[in-house]
């Protein structure tokens, strides 16, 4: 190791060993060679830490909480040490006018160089009046900050795709960052909340390679969102062998069987949850017996609900009460069968009255 990071890291809680462990964890999540770890370390300890402006819009601060309270101290400290949070409403020291001043100082001083992280959806209905900070709408703030940023990281499903605010009927016209920003590269780290390691990996990738990681066509980095949860799930063997929990608490559930039949959305969801896991204790929803709810997918509040069914409900105009897709299918098939029966009966009736009408009858 050519570098001695201790000397450059002021916080005594993050010692060199933890620091290297954190960098190694991120390298593993990124799927890059261990030969690259010194480069990551170098990038993370560079004196020129990238200023970060962290904008909060329509959100619950859960993504920030998830980052700050990551029980993995290495990752949490690494985030705070590697990036310089010039503006973050939850954790910054200044308030009021001073806070707004630090935002504008950063915009002026580091124009084109800082990273912008957006947490939360942006309401657009009625000129965006449903979310205001310091008297300005979220749309205004984003329109001012976005063109000056080097890149934008949309953290969480709200910033990426609108999240719960954008769920039908979307009363505030909420949208994700990528729907409003053009010209500045936007990368999505969806999840509710996303794994801190996916965020850290994106930041360190940017610092090390000076570009954003490769994304899928929903704007998510492939290192974290390149695989379906189902394909890396520890319960996958039970799926292939046809062993399923039929309901919560039954024999199959107690024996760790696949949660497919209780509505697990792992087969529809792309994320690194089964391999990266959460909170440094190697857990994630499916490992503790609850199906995936598909929180990294666009519009998951609309398409993944009901959470304990496999597929969304259907809404047939004119027929209230039938929302289950197969019940609707069977009803339509039943109506069609009845129509077939009536049609045949009319034909038989007509034949009895008038004769067959066939050519041979003549």
């Amino acid at each position, binding site marked *: 190791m050519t570098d001695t990071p201790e000397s450059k890291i002021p916080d005594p809680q993050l010692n060199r060993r933890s620091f290297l462990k954190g960098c190694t964890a991120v390298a593993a999540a990124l799927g890059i060679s261990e030969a690259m770890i010194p480069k990551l370390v170098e990038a993370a300890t560079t004196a020129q830490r990238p200023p970060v402006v962290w904008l909060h819009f329509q959100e619950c601060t859960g993504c920030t909480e998830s980052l700050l309270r990551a029980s993995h101290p290495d990752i949490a400290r690494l985030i705070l040490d590697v990036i310089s949070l010039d503006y973050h409403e939850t954790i910054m020291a200044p308030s009021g006018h001073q806070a707004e001043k630090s935002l504008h100082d950063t915009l002026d001083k580091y124009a084109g160089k800082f990273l912008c992280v957006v947490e939360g959806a942006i309401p657009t209905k009625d000129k965006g009046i449903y979310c205001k900070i310091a008297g300005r709408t979220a749309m205004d703030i984003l329109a001012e900050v976005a063109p000056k940023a080097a890149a934008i990281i949309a953290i969480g499903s709200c910033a990426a795709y609108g999240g719960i605010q954008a769920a039908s009927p979307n009363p505030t016209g909420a949208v994700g960052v990528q729907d409003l920003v053009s010209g500045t590269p936007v990368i999505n780290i969806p999840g509710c909340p996303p794994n801190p390691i996916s965020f850290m990996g994106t930041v360190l990738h940017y610092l090390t390679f000076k570009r954003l990681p490769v994304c899928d066509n929903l704007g998510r980095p492939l290192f974290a969102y390149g695989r379906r949860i189902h394909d890396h799930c520890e319960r996958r063997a039970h799926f292939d062998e046809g062993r399923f929990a039929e309901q919560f608490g039954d024999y199959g559930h107690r024996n760790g069987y696949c949660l497919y039949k209780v509505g697990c959305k792992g*087969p529809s969801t792309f994320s690194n949850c089964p391999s990266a896991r959460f909170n440094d204790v190697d857990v994630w929803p499916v490992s503790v017996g609850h199906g995936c709810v598909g929180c990294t997918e666009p519009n998951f509040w609309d398409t993944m609900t009901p959470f304990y069914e496999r597929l969304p409900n259907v809404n047939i105009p004119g027929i209230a009460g039938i929302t289950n897709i197969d019940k609707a*299918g069977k009803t339509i098939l039943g109506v069609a069968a009845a129509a077939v029966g009536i049609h045949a009966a009319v034909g038989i009736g007509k034949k009895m009255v008038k004769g067959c009408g066939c050519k041979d009858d003549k």
Partner: protein
Amino acid sequence: MIYEKHYVWSILLRLYHWAMAGSIVALSVTGFYIFSPWTLTNLEGTGLFPMMTMRYIHILAAYLFTGAIVARCFLFIFGNRQERVWDVLPISARNIKNLIDTLGAYMYLTDHHDEDRLGHNVLAGMTYVTTIFVGFIQIIAGFYLWLPESAFWQQFGNAIFGTQQYGRFIHHILMWYFILFAMVHIYLVIWNDLKNPDGLVSSIFTGNKFRHREVK
């Protein structure tokens, strides 16, 4: 009165038909299993892998289905007179008249039978063209669900369906279209065979239809 034998359906069309029929049955049955597995779900140590097996059959049948749809599209353009797409769509005066006659006959209003038409009536033809179109959407959704990591299918599928979950939803809804189609198709084929003794049902096995001619 004698019956003239006419060769109407080529071998490829008959193969298409039975590949389609067989694959729809296999796909629906295995599809229902994949959607909601009905086997004993707490058996251990059997080594039967029912879900694996069902998915394997589903994918095999999906390839058969895809081949059938492609073959039908080929025949729409390069098939014989009865198989071509412009013979079955209401794009000419003759075809529009046939469509109106067919609707009338199905509603028991007329007994008119189009004597110069050996192939599909236009109502059936329109339904078949729709079915092929629905089949294409079903194929795209299926490959999108099966090969989500492939850049091609991901791009294609995301553009049409948005997400995997919505692709799965549409895939499941369209299955009901095919079930509905199969029921109505079988009923109307039998109904037509009863009405007009031209050998409609056997024509899909033999390729031949019959037409009567008055002997003077």
